[in-house]
């Protein structure tokens, strides 16, 4: 009789342990079907540097605030941004530096195309301060070294001339700017 009770108790214990092990191996899913969002970073008065494959600096972003977008694409937004863009031409050892400034910016996780918005100014670092291109918005493809307009029409200022153009494209390798369908006027006061 005692042995019968002992065997029954052992069997129940084994069932409980087995069930526990099974439950441990298949945990219950979290509430809802989406994964919890990872918190992005938020930096104030920050500098982010992107290096090239050879270790040299490719891009330096200086901004009043830099915030990583939440939601999985890992892009970052920037407020009151200045950019030092270093571009080396094939066969050139020395890097050419470009300076950009804008009210805001958007940089994807892969840093391929940097978009800038609001009173964007582009100029070579070693040129005269009057040698600049100013636009409402522009993007830079960091692989092709091309800066281009992202909206149309776009207001552009080049030296003492302000223009409304359909599109523009600046090749940062040879420093050539091409503007299409241009309506310009000499307007030195608002430089």
């Amino acid at each position, binding site marked *: 009789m005692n042995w019968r009770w002992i065997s029954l108790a052992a069997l129940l214990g084994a069932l409980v342990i087995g069930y526990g092990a099974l439950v441990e191996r298949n945990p219950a899913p979290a509430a809802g079907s989406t994964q919890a969002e990872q918190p992005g970073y938020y930096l104030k008065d920050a500098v982010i540097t992107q290096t090239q494959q050879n270790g040299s600096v490719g891009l330096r972003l200086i901004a009043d605030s830099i915030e990583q977008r939440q939601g999985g694409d890992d892009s970052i937004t920037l407020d009151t941004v200045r950019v030092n863009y270093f571009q080396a031409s094939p066969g050139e050892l020395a890097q050419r530096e470009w300076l950009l400034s804008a009210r805001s910016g958007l940089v994807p996780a892969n840093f391929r195309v940097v978009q800038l918005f609001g009173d964007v100014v582009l*100029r*070579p670092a070693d*040129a005269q301060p*009057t*040698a*600049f*291109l100013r636009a409402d918005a522009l993007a830079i493809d960091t692989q092709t070294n091309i800066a281009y307009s992202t909206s149309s029409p776009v207001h552009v200022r*080049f*030296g*003492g*001339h302000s*223009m409304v*153009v359909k599109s523009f494209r600046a090749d940062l390798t*040879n*420093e*050539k*700017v*091409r*503007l*299409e*369908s*241009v*309506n*310009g*006027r*000499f*307007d*030195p006061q608002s430089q």
Partner: protein
Amino acid sequence: MAASIRNRNSLAGASGALLLVAFGANAGAAELPRPNDEFKWDAKVVTSDFRTDTLEISGDVRVTQGPMSIQAGAAKARDVRSQNSRWTFENSVHIVTSEAELQSDTASAAVVAGQLARARAQGSPAQFAQRGGKTDAQVRGRAGVIEYDIAAGIVKLTDNVWFSNGKDEFRGDVVIYNVRDERVQINPGGQGRVRGIIRPRQGTAATAPAPTPPPPQPQPESGA
């Protein structure tokens, strides 16, 4: 030395002459550019760089300032960041002001303090026409080079010049014409030979013989 013109049929052979003629074409009051007129331009394509302070402009180029305009197939603007820029135009250049019209193969223009101040047209030949006058008394000219001081209203034609007021006509090395007081000086330095045809005004034809054009003269004259 000055040679006055009488109502002769031909001045062929007058040499070393300074001729002053008031054409009296009665051009209308010219609308002159004002200092606050905007200097505007448009074109299909503009290329530039960040170093040379130059714009290369192509495709239906049109520059305007108040009543003035310059149209061309292509242009190049230098010193564009300063108040004083220099523009060159090519391919069917057409310069129009309220006072005059020039057509040429190439031209250049000076912008001084943001204002279109001077133009220089070159062609084979470049052509000048005064605007606003009577159609049968239009002052016109042709020359290798035509310089136009827009602010002063003075046109200077050099290099194989032909000049006419619609009735009389002259050939010389240099012609200076003031489009405002409509006075013309031909070969003002006293060099070279002036050839002209002065035709009688209507109403005096009964007392003067009809003009006979001189035979074509070899060009250019010596002493240019």
